[in-house]
């Protein structure tokens, strides 16, 4: 490995990878709502222009066979989607006039069920 967190064609996004590539929805949402709108905008403006390239790079590869760099890139793209409403709609990190986030649980798809214990279902969640 070359020590890079993202696949080589995305070197320009490398500074964002360690902080913004988060593997679960609850974590991505927490990152969004605990960030300033300025840092969200900086991330958004850096990643949005790369989104089509990211999709073109990842789309031909089998989802369940991603290596760790590819998975980080996918999670970075998901983070862009998470951040998008803050920039495109609200102009603030969290939803205005909304139910308190501390009381609103975001859970994996099979939380509290036996299906959630099986590895193949966890893969669905990751993708």
């Amino acid at each position, binding site marked *: 490995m070359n020590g890079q967190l993202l696949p080589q064609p995305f070197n320009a996004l490398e500074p964002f990878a360690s902080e913004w590539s988060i593997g679960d929805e609850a974590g991505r949402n927490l990152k969004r709502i605990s960030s300033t709108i300025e840092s969200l905008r900086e991330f958004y403006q850096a990643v949005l222009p790369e989104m089509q390239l990211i999709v073109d790079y990842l789309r031909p590869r089998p989802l369940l066979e991603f290596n760790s760099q590819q998975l980080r890139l996918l999670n970075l793209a998901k983070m862009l989607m998470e951040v998008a409403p803050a920039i495109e709609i609200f102009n603030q990190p969290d939803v205005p006039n909304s139910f308190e986030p501390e009381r609103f649980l975001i859970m994996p798809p099979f939380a509290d*069920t036996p299906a959630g214990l099986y590895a193949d279902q966890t893969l669905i969640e990751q993708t």
Partner: protein
Amino acid sequence: MNAPDAKPFNTQFSQLGSGPLSIESMTSSEYFELEREKIFKKSWLNVGRIEDLPKPGDYMVQSIAILQSSLIIVRGDDQQIRAFHNVCRHRGNEIASGCGNAKGFSCDFHGWTYSNQGELAFVPDEGQFFNLDKNKLGLVSLQCETWKGFIFINADPDPSQSLIEYLGGLGDQLKDFPFEQMVPMHRLEAEVNANWKVIIDAFQESYHAGFVHRLTAGDMLDPDSDDPYMHLSSVRLFGPHRSASVPMNPEYVAQNRPAEMLSYQLASSLWLQEGAMEQQFTPGTNPDDHKHWLFDINVCFPNFFIDVANGWFFTYHFWPVAVDKTLWQYRFYMIPPADAGEAISREYSKLALRDLLREDLNTVEATQRGLMSGAIKEIHLSDQEVAVRHQYKVVEELVRG
């Protein structure tokens, strides 16, 4: 005062009347106890889907406050899904918690052990008991049936209707929807300080959309059209259940929202795909064949929703805890992503709805506080809130009947 002209849903469902409604059922603890006994302990209640329990021995424990019960939902070694009270026949201890996979359940207190089909399999030091007939001391079961992969239980040992009879016309309307092709994308949950019916009301009319969702979905409404308030395009009542169809602004293009637009370009997504407005609708949806149909609200009485759209559906559970407290649960299902483009698109779909749901839940606690203040005795409903009216009519008939 507006003119008392005929309004479409009041004409279609004249039995529901048009007068104001008493708020007693939303604020009275006595009424809540009647709902427990006359509704929840006698109705078919959804507790999940068969995919939650994929393998023999898979079980999940659910504490259901309104039934004052902890239940074990389990797929037995014979593949049948059953529901049992989580109560040892020896001295009443609970025998299971959480979820997992097990050949059986063993009580921590004295070791009585039951198979995953509910039979009492082993009693330690059995010789010390008196005429113990293990064949008659299996776990106490509840009625449990499945429909289209949805698992329902009924606490009434002798329900007046089978599940399919109970679902009636709502089951007919949804029977061709491809539930089995979709997988859950995430699960959301909140304990909400409001009456269960007050929360349901926030999810069964479109009148609020232009206000509560003015930022997230305001552009779905077209102020210049002949439908500036996103009126329901049709409503159906099926006994205690109900279904309403919501249209959208066909001119909606996610202007100045490039990430949202990208999600539509990458996959059949939340609301539309480029040029997809006139596409064939998913079976089991859009029963009145509305050209600009968005999604159907389907309320399975008393506390379960199966809202369907093109290529996705979601469920709500509204589990009453107290007259002014409810456990709200949501699961969103889509066709599993085939590639990274679809995965990224679906991520936007699920979080866009999630943000919108936080707007919905924000109103209901304030509503409950207003109702509990005693300042008003009744509420006033428009023709667009026919589903709200139907809910209170059904509940009142069962509670007073």
